[in-house]
């Protein structure tokens, strides 16, 4: 389930950044501070976007940055940061990005059920209202716990 890998302490709201690179750094630092990844993983995730393009912006306003599981991942986890001011990733269909879900996974399977829940949640307009209006991380995690399956 999503709440198994996206924990309350992995959520940071209303973060101020000036570009997409800083946004990934912030989301990555949350993972790093919680022992999920190391610095190298964050650099790889940024490198991925530079080399491969902004395909990680998967739907309107939402980016899912990640790198390979082979570098710098200690455990499977997803951080969430919401941006005070949205940033452009260069994805003309889905920019600007307000929400960053940064993914780190140790293997090819451990995150499937979490991504499945996330996919369901991103299909609910109500989830975006919660993200937009949340006063604290707990209210986001409470919503996820009630609505994930």
């Amino acid at each position, binding site marked *: 389930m999503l709440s198994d890998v996206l924990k309350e302490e992995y959520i940071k709201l209303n973060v101020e950044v000036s570009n997409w690179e800083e946004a990934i750094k912030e989301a990555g630092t949350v993972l790093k501070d919680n022992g999920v990844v190391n610095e190298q993983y964050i650099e790889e995730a940024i490198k*991925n976007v530079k080399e*491969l*393009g902004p*395909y*990680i912006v*998967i*739907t*309107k306003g939402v980016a*899912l940055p*990640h*790198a*390979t*599981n082979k570098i710098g991942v200690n455990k499977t986890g997803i951080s969430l940061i919401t941006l005070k001011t949205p940033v452009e990733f260069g994805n003309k*269909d*889905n920019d600007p990005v307000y929400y960053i879900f940064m*993914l780190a*996974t140790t293997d*090819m399977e451990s*995150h*499937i059920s979490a*991504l*499945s829940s*996330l*996919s369901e949640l*991103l*299909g609910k307009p109500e989830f975006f209202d919660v993200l937009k209006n949340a006063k604290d991380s707990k209210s986001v995690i409470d919503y996820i716990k009630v609505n994930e399956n």
Partner: protein
Amino acid sequence: MKKGLVMCRTGMGSSLMLKIKLEKIIQENNFPLEIEHDVLSGFMGHHPDVIITMSDLVDEFKDSGCYVIGVKDIMDEEYLTNELKKFFEQSKDEK
């Protein structure tokens, strides 16, 4: 039963989300389609009827001879459903 292949670069983020979404749509519409997913370099091992990938990767498959669906917004169920319907319509004409 047709075989679909979701292609991605690392095979663990966006393409996995796309596969999850497609499986939901396939189930809801009873499409006769099995979905596998792999990274770009693994393409040769599959013999898909249709490739589904993020729109910026579509060009990689233009010489593959496969039917290709490019996706911009993986949460856009209506688009995905319509594109799969178009694929089935077309494959019906070929027989």
